[in-house]
């Protein structure tokens, strides 16, 4: 675990990564590393809970594109929940939303992904 990742757990086969604080390059790299590690364990469904990351920058978010790319190669999925409105808007502008599912809460996400 790092300062930028608050928790990683698995629920119903979904890897849930909860981020913490400013989602910058360090946070993006930490999430990428966590996903790569779980991919090596053949996990392909990922949910990123950003309830505690209300501020992002484009460098951090662009690292999510790498994760989408890796998951496309294994027919996996990337979802998000608890996005602040500005983070949601940023994802829309960058096109991230077209390649991910976005849910209001983690409960809703787990139901939707499962």
């Amino acid at each position: 675990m790092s300062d930028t990742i608050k928790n990683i757990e698995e629920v119903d086969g979904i890897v849930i990564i909860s981020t913490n604080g400013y989602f910058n390059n360090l946070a993006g790299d930490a999430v990428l590393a966590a996903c790569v590690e779980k991919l090596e364990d053949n996990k392909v469904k990922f949910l990123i809970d950003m309830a505690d990351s209300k501020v992002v920058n484009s460098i951090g978010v662009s690292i999510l594109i790498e994760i989408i790319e890796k998951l496309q190669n294994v027919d996996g999925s990337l979802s998000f929940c608890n996005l602040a409105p500005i983070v949601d808007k940023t994802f829309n502008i960058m096109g991230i939303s077209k390649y991910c599912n976005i849910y209001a809460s983690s409960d809703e996400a787990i139901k939707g992904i499962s």
Partner: protein
Amino acid sequence: MAKNPEVELKLPIIPDIELSATKTAEVISKHMNLSEEKTAEISMALIEACINAFEHSKTKEVYIHFIVSNDKLTVKVIDKGIGFDKSKVQIPNIENKLQKDERKRGWGLQLITELMDTVEYESNDEGGTTVTMTKDRDNE
């Protein structure tokens, strides 16, 4: 209390210092009674403008001016670095970045353009770069 204050910051280039500019933006937005949505958009645009200046200007400091007027907030992000040619900046597209070797980054100018009401760039290799962006006051 000043009705239309001007605030100037000088930021050294250290990790995450752009967040100090967003704190100032939040205080000014509150003073102007801007909505939470507009405040968040200004902060995000400011983060991107700062990061661009930090990464590309090759200087040690970035200056930020907040200018409050009756109808809008103007934010200037100024560096005295090497300048850039905006015509050479490609408009990013996620489809062009997925499954290709193309770098995933390069979204800053696009985000600033989408989030602010107006954006202007002045840049040359002698005077550096000034990004001037505005957000209109809420009509209420």
